[in-house]
């Protein structure tokens, strides 16, 4: 099993940014999640060594909060809002349809080619525009199953080699 190339410099920079202070462990993990799109095991180990914090503690945190994933997320993570306003306006059905369309069986999973990943989020704070989906920091409001499906195929096409 290949461990993969881990960008050690990037991790060092992140730890340095938070001044090796373990009380900012959550912030460091957020930066790591942002950089690698997940928490690689090797990075968790490095954090544990550098900060002198047990590895189990790091995994405890990484599994407790919804913002972290231990599996790589896709290049374009899709967040389907299932906050209450979105729920009553069909957010749940949008999630089901996106998962079925991408062939993803579990929330947080990525497609085989790691292009998309999909998961629900509890609330994006745009309840006035429900139902809402966020892809690549772009929030799509008043959306629908059909609408999202169109967005996804457009994104695929845009990045397909000619």
């Amino acid at each position, binding site marked *: 099993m290949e461990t993969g190339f881990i960008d050690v410099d990037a991790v060092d920079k992140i730890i340095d940014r938070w001044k090796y202070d373990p009380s900012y462990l959550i912030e460091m993990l957020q930066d790591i999640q942002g950089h690698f799109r997940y928490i690689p095991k090797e990075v968790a180990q490095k954090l544990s060594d550098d900060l002198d914090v047990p590895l189990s503690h790091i995994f405890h945190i990484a599994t407790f909060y919804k913002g972290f994933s231990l599996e790589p997320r896709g290049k374009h993570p899709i967040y389907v809002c299932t906050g209450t306003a979105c729920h009553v306006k069909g957010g749940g059905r949008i999630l089901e349809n996106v998962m079925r369309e991408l062939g993803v069986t579990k929330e947080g999973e990525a497609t085989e080619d790691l292009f998309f990943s999909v998961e629900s989020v509890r609330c994006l704070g745009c309840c006035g*525009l429900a139902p809402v989906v966020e892809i690549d920091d772009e929030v799509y*409001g008043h959306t629908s199953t059909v609408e999202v499906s169109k967005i996804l195929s457009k994104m695929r096409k845009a990045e397909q080699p000619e």
Partner: protein
Amino acid sequence: MFKLRIEDLDRIAEENKKTMSLRHGAGRVKITVHMGTCGIAAGARNIMAEVMRCVGESGASDIIVTTSGCAGLCSREPMMTVEVTDQAPVKYIDLDKKKTKRIFDEHVMKGNIVEEYALAMGGERTL
């Protein structure tokens, strides 16, 4: 070392009341594009770009363009408020580029409120 004295608050307020209240000819019109997360999600960035384009095109120098947070009525975003000196502000809703251009041409440049796109005029009841 402290930097600001209490008296300075009044001075800063005084200096800024021009943009805040528009009464002294610094600007004839103030356009506020409401850019909260919901506004941006509904397309406020495009509206802002269009406003800037219109301002540039018109060559006018007496128009103040500014952003502000959510105006509250998220279901009708994108929204913008046009305030002509000495008139009640008018809130426009459900905007797109075309509507923005028309509001700019009609209301901002000629002073005629575009009724079809307007939600209301006046201010909210604060405090």
